[in-house]
């Protein structure tokens, strides 16, 4: 089992969380959508696994490199 941290590439706001803890993901599945300077930016699973933690909620502001979710594979 390995724990994978899913980080934000940019500074912005959480617009919509698409998945929940316990959901199984494939690589590149969209976990949540961030909004930054009018752009809708997907946060994708870096690899397949199960979401074990989501560390933000909708409307939260997030920083670059902030950990948004954790996947176990």
């Amino acid at each position: 089992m390995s724990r994978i941290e899913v980080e934000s590439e940019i500074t912005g706001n959480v617009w919509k969380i698409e998945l929940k803890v316990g959901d199984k993901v494939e690589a590149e599945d969209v976990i949540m959508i961030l909004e930054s300077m009018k752009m809708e930016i997907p946060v994708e699973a870096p690899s397949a696994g199960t979401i074990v933690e989501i560390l933000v909620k909708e409307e939260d502001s997030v920083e670059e490199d902030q950990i948004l979710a954790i996947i176990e594979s």
Partner: protein
Amino acid sequence: MKAAVLREANKPMEIEEVQISKPGPREVMVRPIAAGVCHSDLHFMDGSYPYMLPTILGHESAGIVEEVGKDVTYVKKGDSVITCLSAFCGHCNHCLTGHLSRCNSPEVSRKPEEEARISKAGSQIHQFLNLSSFAELMLIHEHALVKVREDMPMDRAALIGCSTTTGVGAVFHTAKVEPGSTVAVLGCGGVGLAAINGAAIAGAGRIIAVDMVDSKLDLAKAVGATDVVNASSGEAVGQIIEMTQGGCDYTFEAIGLKATAEQAFQMLAPGGTATIIGMIPVGTMVELHGVDFLSEKKIQGSNMGSNRFRVDMPRFVDFYLNGKLHLDQMISKHIKLEQVNDALEALKSGQEARHIIMFD
């Protein structure tokens, strides 16, 4: 309505039939007459800027108001408008201090629980930068458009919607170029040419255009460059420092690369300011030589020309109509929506000015 839908990065867009919602209280339905194909569409198409898919690209357009929501009083059916991605909320700190282009308020988009503005068979098509102009209709917030004079040709007006505002605005608002000063512009695509034209209007004494393509340097001269440097030799920085006897007062990077952003800083005179307009790919770091700060060199970003577009765009329309803003040369070809993929390919090659989609 018909639209060019991007379903996968780096794959051609497909012309599809999609559904557009009805205007909400503060929304406006615009029928675009013309839409420019801009270099930043390419950044999203090739995935160097990630974006939610499927989406409909396009963010530089002009058209006619088709229908307004019940609370909209600013425009009415039949008005000529230019759209702008710098939709402003009007009451955040950025808006209230006059920096509308920095507004980051989500309220100009629909909320996740509301019906999407664009969809197909019930599933959402993500609106691009609150605009999506590669489509026969655009449903946008009333704060994403400006009314303009009816005698303004719509294909030229479309350019004002992004490249003109970005380039001229960077010169006027972000850098505040002083009359008589020395300016260099790196990259002579639509935005770079607009910055050159803006510097000429602002009264810069010397305007040096830098590009690797001679035909673009010719265009640069036509819109106001006093000198040109072909950067293919790899000696652009040294050449410009020599030509200016010590560097430029203002430089503008209009490409979006680490190397050219660094060069824009390197070719400054003491006290000079580099303004980065180009979209540098997410994750890229820019390196500067620390000792250069001792000579008070500055570097800053510029997004959409630090615009206040409801004030700026009608002024740019006047500049065009009185001959100061050269938009005719910026358009290399008028095309149909179906040819949008070819237009993006042409941009990629870097050889051509802009293609404008004309809707019938």
